[in-house]
Structure formats: structure tokens, C-alpha cells
């Protein structure tokens, strides 16, 4: 219990910083020394290249091709074997990487933007009716069971392929907004805000140009959390029939493999779960090390 405090002090040697170093310089310095974080970032990058390759049509395009080789085990021709209709599992897993990145990216960016805007507004106007309305909205969205909310959005949008994305964005922003709100309440009492007010900067500019940029480290961390949550939710929603409608995804592969495993064919289940698991754990490691690097107050 005592020895750790000493090593912590060494890790953060003030001599390593110049006087003008920003939060980002320090964060980069800390991140460079975090082996877990770098490994995570590297793995995510590999997945991203796989997804880009599908995007540019280099690989993964033949995910829906069928053949006569049904339920084959791994071989040179089909590295991960084939599924019940003879499609190559590896190709499907690769194509699904693109789908996962699309879901994760769209949801992470939009829910973070929404959370940043509404969180800043409610933090800046804390105690007023604006704050009450936004807090009420967050409370309401958090109290609707997630799967039911997705189902309700899917009903209302009549089979729109983006129903899942919209439902995730509509619920994931509350987490970001709560953290941003707390930070903005702290920031708005500081001198730079007072200075901006005294020289007559408009309220909109104070909120979005002076205060919100100061929460960017929170937004970065929150967006990685939303990314992971989106990928994981996609799997469960696709299994429940509420997720990806066209194409293939890890969730759809896992849900079709529930029949395979009962018959003793595990390659479909194993490949999709392992691909999903490795990406999620890498992203979690990356996200953790970003939190360590960017949050000066975090004790680990």
C-alpha cells in the first residue's frame, strides 16, 4: 500500500516537462510510456486498416458468395472454414469489421457531439429551466430499458436501416453530457470566463468557444467509451433482430452460429467472437490509457 506511492512519484517526473507544455504534451508523454495503451492502439489500427481495405474493395467483397463446401473445417482454401451455406467465414468476419467500425464511428461521433452540446448548455445554465429540462430528458432516456427503446425507435422508423444507430445515439449521449455538465459547472467560475464576459463576448461564444474546448479531453475519452459500447450493443441487438438489417456483422454471425454450435461446428462462432473480443479489449486498453494520460485527477 505504501510502496506504490513512491513509484507513482517517479513515473511523473516534473523534470521531463518544459514550462510551456500543454495538457496534450503531457498526455502524449504519458501515453508513450504506457505499454498496454500502445498495444491497444496498435491493434485498433490493424482493425482499422482491415476496415479500410473492405471500404476500398481490396478484400471482404465476397462475403455473400456461397459454395458447395458446407460446414467445412479450417483449410488452406478457407482459413476459418465455411458456414451452413458454404460462405467463407474469414471473408465474412473481415467484411463485418467494416460494419463494426461504421456503427462505432457514427455512434461515437454523433453521441459525443450531442452530449457535448447539451452537457455544456445544462452546465452553463445550471440551476435554470434549461438545465432542468436537459436533466429531465437525460433522466427519462436513462429510465427506458435500452432494448425496448431500440425496438420502439425501430417501430417508429418503419424498418429504417439506421434505427439502431439513431437509438444508440439518442441514449449514449447522456453519459457524456453528465460528465461535461460537471466539468462546465467547474469551469464557468474561472477567471478566463469572467474575462471573456467582461469584454463582452456573447454567451454562445463563451459556451462553445471558450468553455467547450476545455472539455475536449473528456470528449475524446467519452467517444472511445461510446465506440466500444456501440460495437458491443450491435452484437446483442443483431441477435435480437433489432440490429443490422442488410449485410453481415459479428452479431449476425454469432446469432446464426447458435444453430451451428448445437451441431458441433464452432468455427463461425469462434471466429466472430474472437474478432469482436480482440477489438473490444484493445479499444478498452486504449481508452484506459487515454483516461490515465488525460485526466490529471485520476488515481490508479
Amino acid at each position: 500500500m505504501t510502496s506504490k506511492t513512491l513509484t507513482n512519484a517517479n513515473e511523473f517526473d516534473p523534470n521531463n516537462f518544459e514550462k510551456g507544455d500543454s495538457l496534450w504534451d503531457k498526455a502524449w508523454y504519458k501515453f508513450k510510456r504506457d505499454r498496454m495503451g500502445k498495444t491497444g492502439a496498435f491493434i485498433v489500427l490493424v482493425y482499422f486498416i482491415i476496415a479500410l481495405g473492405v471500404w476500398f474493395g481490396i478484400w471482404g467483397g465476397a462475403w455473400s458468395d456461397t459454395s458447395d463446401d458446407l460446414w467445412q473445417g479450417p483449410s488452406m482454401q478457407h482459413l476459418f472454414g465455411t458456414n451452413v451455406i458454404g460462405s467463407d467465414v474469414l471473408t465474412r468476419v473481415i467484411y463485418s469489421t467494416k460494419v463494426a467500425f461504421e456503427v462505432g464511428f457514427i455512434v461515437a461521433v454523433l453521441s459525443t457531439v450531442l452530449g457535448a452540446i447539451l452537457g455544456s448548455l445544462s452546465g452553463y445554465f445550471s440551476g435554470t429551466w434549461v438545465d432542468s429540462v436537459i436533466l429531465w430528458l437525460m433522466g427519462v432516456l436513462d429510465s427506458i430499458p435500452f432494448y425496448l427503446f431500440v425496438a420502439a425507435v425501430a417501430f417508429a422508423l418503419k424498418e429504417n436501416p439506421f434505427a439502431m444507430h439513431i437509438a444508440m445515439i439518442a441514449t449514449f449521449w447522456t453519459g457524456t453530457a453528465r460528465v461535461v455538465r460537471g466539468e462546465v459547472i467547474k469551469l464557468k467560475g474561472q477567471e478566463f470566463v469572467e474575462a471573456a464576459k467582461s469584454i463582452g463576448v456573447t454567451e454562445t461564444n463563451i459556451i462553445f468557444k471558450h468553455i467547450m474546448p476545455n472539455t475536449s479531453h473528456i470528449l475524446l475519452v467519452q467517444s472511445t467509451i461510446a465506440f466500444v459500447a456501440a460495437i458491443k450493443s450491435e452484437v446483442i441487438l443483431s441477435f435480437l433482430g433489432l440490429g443490422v438489417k442488410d449485410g453481415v456483422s459479428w452479431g449476425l454471425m454469432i446469432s446464426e452460429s447458435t444453430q451451428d454450435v448445437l451441431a458441433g461446428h464452432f468455427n463461425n462462432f469462434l471466429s466472430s467472437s474472437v474478432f469482436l473480443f480482440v477489438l473490444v479489449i484493445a479499444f478498452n486498453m486504449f481508452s484506459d490509457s487515454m483516461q490515465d494520460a488525460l485526466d490529471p485527477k485520476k488515481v490508479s
Partner: protein
Amino acid sequence: MDILKFAVRKLFGGIPLILGVTFISFLLMVYFGPDLTWEKLGKNPTQQDIMEVRHELGYDQPFVKRYGNYLKQLVTLDFGNSQMTDKKVSTILKETMPVSLHLIIPGFILGNIIAVALALFAAYHRGTWLDKLIMTGSVVGMSISFLIVIIAFQLLFCSSFGLDLFPVRGWEVYNNEGNIIWSQYFKYVTVPTLATVFVALGYNTRFYRAVLVEEMTKDHVRTARAFGHKPASILFKSVLKNAMVPITTRIMFSIPLVVVSGSLLIESYFGIPGVGKITYDAIVAGDQNILKAIVGLTAVLFVIVLLLTDILYRVFDPRVELK
């Protein structure tokens, strides 16, 4: 007496939340939701038939009135009949609720108790390999999808590819009088519980450890150490008791979601006839009356949980005022 007044005021304070939840879900699910007229009609309906069915479903009434009816249903707990099976929704809920509770309670309790124990252990050995081992384990647990855990555990424990110790699916735990048979219960509840605990441990341990570690770096703990109190007594009296506020919040807030969302996957995968299963069936079939009942009741449950959490804060932290 103070507590009672506080409770009543809090309950009234929860009304906007219930109104919000019911309004949004009503708008999405019923107002913009699927039109059930044609499913109820026979072949070649006349204009008269259509009007009758629409009247029966309440489609000919203005929005405000239909929403008002829903609120009235919520207050009287009379949600009409299921559109798929024609049974009373309240009867269905009465039958399925105990099943879900029996299924979920062991996993919920174990998942939280083991997580707090592991978190205490990790926080006590902060920075050592024991701490790192537990934290790595919890990141791994966090990263595996619940669905994968369910499928893998079913394969491991219930199928001939694994240990083949427990039944694959089903829930035959009640005898003819409706009482629970404990040996049967143990057989059917074990694998779902193991899966729930496995997934809960990852998130919970991490959260609880972070809370405990933050508390451990505070001044009062340092002072207690300087005065020579035993590490174990500091851990339980100064650290754990102070950390109970965030821990309680997390446990309480997960109750409403665990009851519906958590059992949804498990029940539909293991074929257990609980609330989660009927919710899943209702989603697939578009059975609005059941969905309305479940969303509304979850919102009410949420408000009650909020209230209980506020009262529990007071138990752990006497400085919290009931205002």
C-alpha cells in the same frame, strides 16, 4: 416522520420522469408504431368492419385521449389484454414476474458481493501483481460480449461438447401447487447465474476498485494510518463505509435495468418464461399492450429506486440532509 414526508415529496417529484418515459414510449411505440388494424381483420373487410376494429383499438380517438388512457391504465394496473394471446396483461405479468426474480436474484447478489470483495482485495494490494491480475481479469470480463458468454457457458456446461451437467434450456422448477422445488431450481438456475456473474464481475470490480482507491488517497485515511490503526480496520471502517454511497448508487440503479434488459437475453436464449421472454416475444410480434405495461412499470420502478437510494444515502452518510 421526516423520512415519510421526504418519501412522499420524492414520489411526487418522480411524476415528471414517469410522464416523460411514458410519453416518449407511447409516441414511438403506439402513435408512430405499427398499425394493428389489418392483423385483427378477417378477409375482405367492409368499411364497417375496419371502423369497428379501429374503434376497438382506440385509433379513432385524439392523441391526448389515447395517452390519457395509457396513464389511467398505469394507475389502475389494468393494461387490457395481450394482443397476441388475448390473456390479461396483468395476469401475464403476475405469472412471469416471480420467474424472472427467481432467475435473476442469485446472480445479482453474487455478482455484487464478489465484485466488492475482489475490489477490496485489489485496492488493499494496490500496485502489486495481485491487483494487476484482478484488474486485467476485469478488463477481459468487460470485453467479452454477454451473448458470447451465454453461448459459451451453455456449450461448456449443458452440451455434450462440454461437461453436460445441466439442462440446456427450460424452467421446470415449480410443482403442481406452484411451489419451488429447490433441487430442480438449482439445476436450472446455475448456468444463467454463472453467466450473469461472469459479466457483472468485470464492470463491477473495476468500478468498485476505482471508488475504493479514490477514497484511500484521502486525508482522513492517511491520518488514520499515521495514528497506527490496523490496515484491515481502516479498509472497512474508513474506506468501505465512505465508499458505500457510490456503491449503493450503482447497485440500486442497476436494479430496474437488470430486471428487464438483463433477463431479456438470458430468458430468450435459455427459453425461460419470465418477463424478459415475454418482452422479447412482444417486441418481435409488436404486442403494444405488453410493451406499454413493461415500459410504464419500469419507469415507476426507477422512481421508487431513486427514492430508496436517497434514503439509503442517509444511512451511510448522516451528513446527507433529507430535503
